[in-house]
């Protein structure tokens, strides 16, 4: 994938003192975080830490305090279709009870574009190919396995960001993913992460909620560790993946060793 314009935008998405209150609960509390183009940021933390809320503040929730800037403008200032072309969000689970075919689902990603049916079809075909879904193109979505559904949904959010037939992205595009690998087997987990990594290499900024710390360590450039709405650590994988921080976030004792092949941190639980 190529950028339609080679100039990179350094900070495509940034959070400044973002807080969110729902009733008595403080779901997010003064989050400061930056995401640069070409980077993969892993959002980590126990259940209820506020990872999903953070993603929803970027697109959907409006009554947070603080600011979230996309390309130097508040996300709230964007027109819906304009924003949809540079920012896509894949939620945790997508319930769909109507038997759309796989290619129709991917095609839905083209909603905000006016590129015409021929180009939309070509983009859909290429994305199906990229996600190894070509054989399933005509199958009803409702008949797929959980992992296949997840890959279809990823192809759909990608088609939302694609501008042209050769899969060029809008410059500084951002992809937010909420636990994209939790329903996948080991093989598809790593193949999905590899696809994301390739996309990052071409300049896409990815923020991904993960529960598997080792997967995050293997693929992410940056990590953010949340607990009870607070950001307790952010930085490189090596800075965040330390036994004290993980103890603080998850309340479990771990050992950190280096992966024998990649030399990335490897989290080992003390059972």
């Amino acid at each position: 994938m190529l950028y339609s314009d080679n100039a990179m935008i350094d900070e495509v998405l940034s959070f400044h003192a973002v807080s969110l209150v729902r009733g008595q609960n403080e779901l997010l509390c003064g989050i400061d975080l930056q995401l640069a183009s070409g980077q993969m940021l892993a959002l980590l933390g126990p259940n209820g830490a506020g990872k999903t809320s953070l993603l929803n503040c970027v697109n959907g929730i409006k009554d947070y305090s603080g600011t979230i800037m996309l390309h130097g403008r508040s996300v709230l200032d964007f027109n819906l279709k304009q924003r949809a072309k540079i920012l896509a969000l894949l939620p945790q689970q997508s319930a769909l009870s109507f038997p759309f075919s796989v290619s129709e689902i991917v095609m839905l990603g083209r909603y905000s574009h006016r590129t015409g049916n021929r180009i939309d079809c070509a983009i859909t075909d290429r994305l199906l190919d990229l996600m190894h879904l070509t054989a399933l193109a005509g199958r009803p979505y409702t008949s797929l396995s959980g992992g296949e559904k997840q890959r279809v949904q990823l192809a759909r959010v990608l088609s939302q960001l694609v501008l042209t037939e050769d899969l060029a992205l809008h410059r500084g595009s951002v992809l937010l993913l909420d636990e994209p690998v939790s329903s996948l087997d080991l093989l598809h987990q790593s193949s999905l992460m590899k696809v994301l990594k390739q996309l990052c290499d071409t300049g896409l900024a990815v923020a991904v909620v993960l529960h598997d710390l080792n997967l995050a360590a293997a693929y992410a450039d940056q990590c953010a560790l949340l607990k009870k709405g607070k950001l307790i650590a952010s930085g490189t994988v090596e800075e965040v993946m330390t036994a004290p921080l993980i103890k603080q976030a998850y309340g479990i004792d771990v050992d950190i060793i280096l992966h024998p092949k990649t030399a990335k941190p490897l989290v080992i639980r003390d059972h």
Partner: protein
Amino acid sequence: MRSLLLVITPMVIFLGLCVGPVDTSLFQVWSLLPSIIVSQSPIDPDLMGSYPVVRELRLPRTFLAWLVGAGLAMSGAAMQGLFRNPLADPSIIGVTSGASLGASIAVVLIGSQFNAWLGLSSIVLGAFLGGLLAVVIVYRLASGAHSSVNAGSLSADQGTSVATMLLVGIAITALAGAANSALAFIADNETLRRISLWNMGGLDGANDQRCLVGLLIIVPSMLILWRSHRSLDALLLGESEAHYLGVNVSYTKRLLIMVVALAVATSVALAGVIGFVGLVVPHLLRMLIGPGHRQLMVCSALAGGILLVLADVLARLLISPAELPVGVVTAVIGAPFFILLLRQRNGYALQ
């Protein structure tokens, strides 16, 4: 599918012009067609007798049947998409029961003879206003509600939750039904019969004015519904997903509900309560051509029109020279057919 329906449509409409208690052959009606379409065209003296029957009775009736059937089926397709439920039908937002109540009030208070406006009886206006009022009430109540169902949506400003609307719609339908029964209870026998006949649906009141009103309201409504096909497709993914894709969810919801309310209130006002068409036509077509609204909406409109014209033909034929209420015909034929299909496609509806 669409071309098949497009071919059948004129055939069915022609059939609608040919059938009735007065005997007219296919050939006679065929020769009358030019003078029906172009009013100046001279009429063969031999056909003078059947011209008024075809032009003044059957033509408006067939046309209105087609219009109402098309409008109901397309509204049904839109509601099933909006509520993400293949078992939704246009009456789900309270419009049908509201219109029913409005008509009953008009019958009881004013009587149906009084011609209010444009040759439309007060019952038509009562039904139309009642239907719209019910939807407005449902919509307002659902927007104000912060129920547990609503908590699932992204935030408070996300607008009216369709789940809440569904529940409020059921409540308002029950309330309007109760009020309707109360009115029927206090009404005298003659009024009671008129109320209940109206509730069975019937196209026997069709005239040029009604056709014109239908044309002016239902056709533009259908165009707006069709234009929303991309948003409806996206909404099937879920409201949040549609929002991420760039759909203005609350605007789309409001627009669709208003337009459906308008189309259905008009249909009910002009032709009484006709069940089954709005529920089953889009449902069956979805089984045949898939859930994409671009095709589904057009095919639903065509098939709904065909179905109601055919049902009306049967209503005129079955106990000729008397006629059955068309709502009875659609239900009697449609319901078993529907159950049969559901049983063949095991569990499809509840997937």
